[in-house]
């Protein structure tokens, strides 16, 4: 991430931080009006906070955002042996998976799927319809028959989807 980007994000961080104590709390995120009408707003906010904590500092903020860096072509072949960069395809998918998987058991159960679906959908769908859609989704992904989607199955379903592009924000370049 270039220097100017970091400066910019830091100034954004400080402007969000109303309490001016160097960390962001959930309320600071809630204050972003665009996020308020994002159906997945709560989940996204939660993704910033590490397990059990209520405050996130700038480092944590950047760490989460780093998942959304676009993947450069020259980076792909660079460092095969080192730790995988945060914005690799696999890590992006992991991030998305964690948004579904609330209880962190590494599986997306039908219940968790239904919750996310319900958040994303208007009021005109009945519960039964939603239930059958959720069933269908699990059926399409499930390979080992446990009626839940594990991370490997999740990856497999999305192999044709251009995740790199969908989970990249241009100006984090």
């Amino acid at each position, binding site marked *: 991430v270039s220097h100017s980007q970091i400066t910019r994000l830091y100034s954004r961080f400080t402007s969000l931080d109303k309490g001016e104590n160097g960390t962001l709390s959930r309320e600071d995120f809630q204050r972003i009006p665009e996020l308020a009408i994002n159906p997945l707003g709560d989940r996204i906010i939660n993704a910033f906070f590490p397990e059990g904590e209520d405050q996130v500092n700038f480092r944590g903020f950047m760490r989460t955002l780093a998942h959304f860096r676009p993947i450069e072509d020259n980076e792909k072949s660079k460092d095969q042996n080192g730790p995988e960069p945060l914005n690799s395809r696999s890590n992006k998918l992991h991030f998305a998976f964690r948004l579904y998987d609330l209880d962190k058991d590494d599986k997306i159960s039908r219940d968790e799927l239904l919750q996310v679906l319900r958040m994303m*959908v208007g009021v005109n769908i009945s519960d039964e319809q939603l239930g059958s859609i959720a069933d269908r989704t699990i059926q399409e992904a499930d390979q080992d028959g446990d009626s839940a989607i594990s991370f490997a199955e999740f990856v497999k379903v999305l192999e044709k989807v251009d995740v790199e592009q969908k989970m990249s*924000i241009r100006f984090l370049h």
Partner: protein
Amino acid sequence: VLAALAAGAAEARATSEGQLPGAAAMGTGTPPSPSGTAFEETRLHVFTLDYPHVQIPFEITLWILLASLAKIGFHLYHKLPSIVPESCLLILVGLLLGGIIFGAEEKSPPVMNSDVFFLYLLPPIVLDAGYFMPTRLFFENFGTIFWYAVVGTLWNAIGIGISLYGICQISAFGLTDITLLQNLLFGSLISAVDPVAVLAVFENIHVNEQLYILVFGESLLNDAITVVLYNLFKSFCQMRTIKVIDIFAGIANFFIVGIGGVLIGILLGFVAAFTTRFTHKIRVIEPLFVFLYSYLSYITAEMFHLSGIMAITACAMTMNKYVEENVSQKSYTTIKYFMKMLSSVSETLIFIFMGVSTVGKNHEWNWAFVSFTLLFCLIWRALGVFVLTQIINVFRTIPLTFKDQFIIAYGGLRGAICFSLVFLLPPAVFPRKKLFITAVIVVIFFTVFIQGITIRPLVEFLDVKRSNKKQPAVSEEIYNRFFDHVKTGIEDVCGHWGHNFWRDKFKKFDNKYLRRLLIRENQPKSSIVSLYKKLEIKHAIEMAESGMISKVPSSVSLSEYHEGKIKPLSPTEMENMREILTKNLYQIRHRTMSYNRHSLAADANEKQAKEILIRRRHSLRESLRKTNSLSRERPVLAFCGGLL
């Protein structure tokens, strides 16, 4: 409009009417008296038909009515608007009308004169564009917009002018009498890009916001610059000798015209905002102030020969924010709708005139000139965009990709402005005026029809990386939408392009002085609270408490689930599911309302936002309680305005 047209058209008309030889000079006026000597008394007529009396308004009304009916027909087949831009339709209607008039009367139909266009038809269009311009986005990209508009237009104008002059020198084409200045003038008027058709197509292309604001902003500034250049070259053409001092005067004039116009616009914008502070007792005429002040800024600028277009744009952009807060909700809606209506009518009339005047005798066809004009327009636009982008990309944080450049270059459609400008050339100074008219019409038709229709398939072609023939699974739609929501959410957290020194300074100044002065009840509210207020949360909460929206999937559906026995679905059921999903999945919030001259697309988003907010009311209420104790902030009303 009517008076002006009457003057222009009366002569052509009255002679053919044949009823009133005596009233030929007037056109309107005295009711027909049956011819008779002074000694013959005429009986009282019980029923008379007096067409010339109402002729002009009657015909105009018919024209507008016909175009509007055509629009209804156009939208009946719902796939058509996404393939063919509306401008094509309007031109076709115009051609039809022109054909009818020509066929009926065997001569060219009436054309408009310069006052009608510049004083009546152009301002509504520009006002519409300026009022709905998302200001924050505009200023964030102002450098690039300015660069494309000014340097790009100059590049196009001079490039086309000089190359055409080169072509004219070749005596084989019979064009040697067109001077360099005339060519430059022609070049400047044909580089006026009118992206209305492209913007209509943009909604289907899913172009990113940056690109959208670039094209939009470029078109506005571009119009102003074209008009300035046009007037400049026109006066040059009419001067006998041109000294060096005149060229410098021209350049200075350019700047004065632009900046002067903007200043007038800003001044009147503030006055308008101030006026609306006191209008709460006379809500009914609130919209009138908006229109009057904008139009006043336009004609005041025109009075000083400054750029009226810049003035009205600046006025609209300035008063936008403040007026929105001062006027009532209903007035605000009225303003928006009335503005759309006016600009729609204006544009309709212009395109109809275009169609009408295509059919007629004021043409001169010259293969070389016309085809080279078209060629040079395309070449210089593409070159210009390419070269300029290379330079400006150095200064931008987010560089423009090849696809962006292609869209900008290919989307350079010509339209109403260049058409009007060519019609207003004084024929005394331009003996080959008819040739120019023909060339312009050909270029416009080509760009609007061919480029307008093909831009969408071409962009889709550029976009496709891997063609996936497999039938998409039901879940794929869900996943795609899921990712889009996440991405939008993270983008919102990042606050997009971050903060800008000047913008922050302006905001502080704005909060301290301007808002106090110009807005009636200026109580800074927390942004969530103001959102709530506008969404009539009481009603919403009642609806939610009565159980219409459930947050947790009901236990019934959970118990219906049989372990391991998921039955395979038939194709129709799959289709049903997919359809249900497509209809019901929430849309990504568009940060800027996509501009469409022909509609206001606010309602769907409003409903969606309401539902989401209700659902999240618990977590939001929590945060409300905590934020109320912290320092005040100003409401994010640009966002609210966009939402609502």
